[in-house]
């Protein structure tokens, strides 16, 4: 395992290795650690919010700080926790699932991670420099453009930098999946996780530029005196809402689709059946991705768009329920007639179905434009999107981590602790969020720092807070499980689950070139096909030969560091123009690194046949 190697080589060498790595498997770990770190910060913020709302007229945190909490909780969870954790799974799994030795652009992969990382750090530095952003994660103008202090500036710069990282990662996966598939791995033989990564990457490609544009307008309004959102000077505040949601709605599908893919692989593996209705599932994924761009204005039903626009977006939104329903039924029928093995990964997946179905149902209710006049910006919406994002995305991340943990670390997460973490989290989740639907309809708006006594909201809020503590307990047990597994659990072989797809045909964790010989894919679920033919592993598609691999590089780290420094310069040059020096230094580092990258040829290195043969003797080929 990597820690053993690390001890031999020393800490500094390991850190240098991770700073310079372009290996998708190590980048997956970087995404996992930083995403996990931000998930804990976002969770802490959530707990503070719930403690504040434990009883009426509470004064646990102040009004201004509360608005910073909700803003940072939402922003952190969406951009800095869910997205990187999903990228962790994609990086760890997708190249292996298609039989590739790395992603198409390993250098860009590293750049994408470091941009995300420094953007996230920049955003969180705001806590220590006079206040975090406080205009909500949606950052609506003009509250955001007029927000005093630099909180919103950090939001703009942090998300701009990390958003660039996400866009790069999305493009990278698109090209990887189009170009890097092993012989025989046709589109209609790709595992659903790869398919959903493909669709998600396309969504990222088209959705994130809208955010980028919005953030640029916001940046110029706040820092350079433009007036895109200033009504007094002829601007329009609704433009921000449109730009934000043209990005923001596809973003929801960017979050959930990869995990739909993960669930598909998990249901199929632990039912020992091929996915029911594979082509319908692929079609549904593509359709959800497509429709995801047609419905952004359902976040804006009360903004005054008029009944025609509202009706069109209402019906379009309802239409998404159809492909989602197709997926739910196909998962159920994948299990139908199977041999269901209830591992922790399967437990999270099975729990996802009713939870997500409830979230989808409230989604259809919200789609009824007129009824949204009651639901909008109340706790009904808070209940709805937590059902989708926790019940879908977070359950999916837990399921995916349990499922692919052996592939990433060579050890199966302890099953007993896995189930012990599941139950408090699952029960706490429903306790926290189910009641919130009713709170909303009973008259509790969203983003309320306090609710007043005598409005009948006391009991519901108390239940919700208690539930949040259960979720925290579940999370802590999961963390304990990680440590316990690392210390106590035995190493496992390449295929601990008797699984079906290519990633399980190679050792756990895989050698850094993944496949000694590129495999030949002979059908859907390629490893299962070979196993059913009585073979031990994949048939190679090429003779044993030298493997060309990319070299590591510190340049992605330096480029991102430059952006990070320039970010501070942009934020503070408003107060004092001498901060422009930071902009020049930062951009100098970034552009200098880019120039170095362009001028200096780096042709990578070869792993020679003799080394591979030595590795095979040690058991890597099997």
């Amino acid at each position: 395992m990597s820690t053993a190697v690390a001890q031999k080589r020393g800490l500094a060498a390991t850190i240098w290795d991770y700073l310079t790595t372009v290996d998708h498997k190590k980048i997956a770990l970087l995404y996992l650690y930083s995403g996990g770190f931000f998930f804990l910060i976002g969770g802490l913020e959530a707990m503070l919010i719930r403690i504040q709302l434990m009883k009426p007229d509470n004064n646990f945190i102040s009004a201004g700080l509360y608005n910073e909490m909700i803003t940072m909780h939402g922003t952190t969870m969406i951009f800095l926790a869910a997205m990187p954790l999903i990228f962790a799974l994609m990086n760890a799994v997708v190249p292996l699932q298609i039989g590739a030795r790395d992603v198409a652009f390993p250098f860009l992969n590293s750049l994408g991670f470091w941009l995300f990382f420094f953007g996230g750090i920049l955003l969180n530095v705001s806590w220590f420099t006079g206040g975090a952003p406080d205009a909500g994660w949606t950052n609506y103008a003009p509250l955001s453009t007029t927000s005093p202090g630099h909180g919103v500036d950090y939001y703009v710069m942090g998300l701009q930098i990390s958003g660039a990282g996400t866009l790069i990662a999305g493009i990278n996966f698109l090209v990887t999946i189009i170009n890097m598939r092993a012989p025989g791995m046709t589109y209609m033989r790709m595992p659903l996780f790869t398919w959903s990564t493909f669709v998600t990457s396309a969504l990222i490609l088209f959705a994130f530029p809208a955010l980028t544009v919005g953030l640029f307008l916001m940046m110029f309004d706040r820092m350079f005196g433009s007036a895109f959102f200033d009504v007094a000077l002829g601007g329009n505040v609704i433009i921000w809402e449109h730009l934000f949601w043209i990005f923001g709605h596809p973003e929801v599908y960017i979050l959930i689709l990869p995990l739909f893919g993960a669930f598909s692989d998990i249901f199929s593996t632990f039912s020992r059946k091929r996915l029911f209705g594979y082509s319908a599932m692929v079609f549904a994924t593509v359709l959800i991705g497509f429709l995801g761009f047609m419905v952004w204005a359902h976040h804006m039903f009360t903004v005054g768009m008029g009944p025609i626009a509202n009706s069109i977006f209402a019906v379009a939104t309802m239409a998404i329920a159809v492909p989602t329903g197709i997926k739910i039924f196909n998962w159920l029928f994948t299990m139908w007639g199977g041999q269901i093995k209830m591992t922790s990964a399967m437990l999270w997946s099975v729990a996802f179905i009713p939870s997500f179905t409830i979230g989808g149902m409230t989604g259809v209710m919200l789609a009824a434009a007129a009824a949204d006049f009651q639901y909008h910006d109340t706790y009904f919406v808070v209940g709805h999107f937590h059902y989708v994002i926790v019940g879908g995305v977070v359950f999916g991340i837990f399921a995916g981590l349990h499922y692919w943990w052996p592939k990433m670390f060579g050890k199966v997460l302890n099953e007993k602790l896995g189930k012990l973490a599941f139950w408090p989290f699952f029960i706490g989740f429903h306790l926290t969020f189910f009641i919130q639907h009713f709170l909303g309809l009973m008259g509790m708006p969203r983003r309320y720092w306090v609710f007043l006594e005598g409005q009948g909201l006391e009991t519901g809020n108390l239940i919700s807070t208690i539930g949040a503590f259960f979720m925290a307990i579940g999370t802590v047990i999961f963390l304990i499980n990680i440590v316990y597994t690392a210390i106590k659990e035995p190493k496992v072989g390449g295929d601990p689950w008797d699984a079906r797809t290519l990633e399980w045909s190679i050792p756990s964790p895989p050698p850094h070139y993944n496949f000694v010989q590129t495999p030949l894919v002979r059908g859907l679920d390629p490893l299962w096909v070979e196993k059913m033919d009585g073979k031990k592993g994949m048939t190679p598609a090429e003779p044993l030969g030298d493997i060309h691999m990319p070299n590591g590089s510190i340049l992605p780290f330096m480029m991102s560091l430059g952006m990070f420094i320039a970010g501070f310069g942009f934020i503070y040059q408003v107060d004092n123009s001498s901060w422009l020096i930071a902009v020049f230094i930062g951009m100098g580092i970034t552009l200098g690194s880019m120039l170095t990258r362009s001028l200096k040829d780096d042709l990578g290195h070869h792993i020679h046949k003799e080394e591979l043969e030595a590795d095979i003797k040690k058991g890597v080929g099997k």
Partner: protein
Amino acid sequence: MRGWMGKFRSLFLFSTLALILSGCGEENLSALKPKGYSAELLLDLMLISIAIMIFVFVIVMAIYVYVLVRYRKKKGQEDIIPKQTEGNKALEVIWTVIPIILLLVLAVPTVQATFDLADQSTQGDEGVLTVEVTGNQYWWHFNYRGEEIATSQELYIPTGERVYLDMKASDVLHSFWLPAIAGKMDTLPGENINTMYLEAYEEGVYWGHCTELCGPSHSLMDFRVIAVSPEKYDQWLEDMKNVDPEAQPETTTAQEGQELFNNNCMSCHAIGGASMGVGPNLTNFGNREKIAGILDPTKENLVDWIVHPDEIKPGNKMPANIVEPEEAEKIADYLLQLEHSSVGVDAPTQTEE
């Protein structure tokens, strides 16, 4: 039974559902206890959607439970390999077409209701009231079009008829939500005027909230809508038009308070008149349900508010310590005796239920 689907409410799950849901929340606040046309229409729409969704959920759960019980791996079956089914065209068609039909069933009333609530056909007609609503950090202003009067924080409307609201904001986005009577609509700064209407069935004091994040005191930007019978409303209009802002209070402290008020507060606040100042219009303050939308109308609370408004509503624009506490008491005496109209003081509030 005034809703457009009143006839059908006894069918299906609706009666049970309506019964269960109506147990939720306080009167005159909860969207589940509608007291007005729009709220009732919307509750009906919610009930249709909930019924359809419960129907779907029951089916999903039935299959789900069956599958999980029936197909759990049992001891001694470790080596059995299940049949690798590819799929089933007929099933795919079924679970595509049935949801489409169910959604169409929901889409029709949705579109109807959406257009119904956007209807402005009678606005501007003789005798139809339009109120110009302005959202401010953190208070609401109501200007009664054509009547030369204005109120803040408390909106008076006649029952049984449509009252149109033409809404905008003066600073950041706000949203006007009156769950028991109607839904909500955002108020925007600039030229965009959003229009919605209210129609209250019963007399009462209804609780409203701001539902668009507007700053630290977003959660404290409450307002009241006081619905009274049309006759009482006419009486109220009469009273409000006859307000004498200069009227001499009876007690000496209140008289001193009036003097202090005129010297310290009049640059932002008004009594009588129809224009919107920097701060709320304080006409009829003695009959307000709440001070600043949230505090009980006691003298102690009012003095606290006058001296330390920022501690009660963080981030609001009224400066602290503008007067000494002793002076604030006199101002409070003056304001609390401003009872320009007794209409609506006996209207039922939710706490009486």
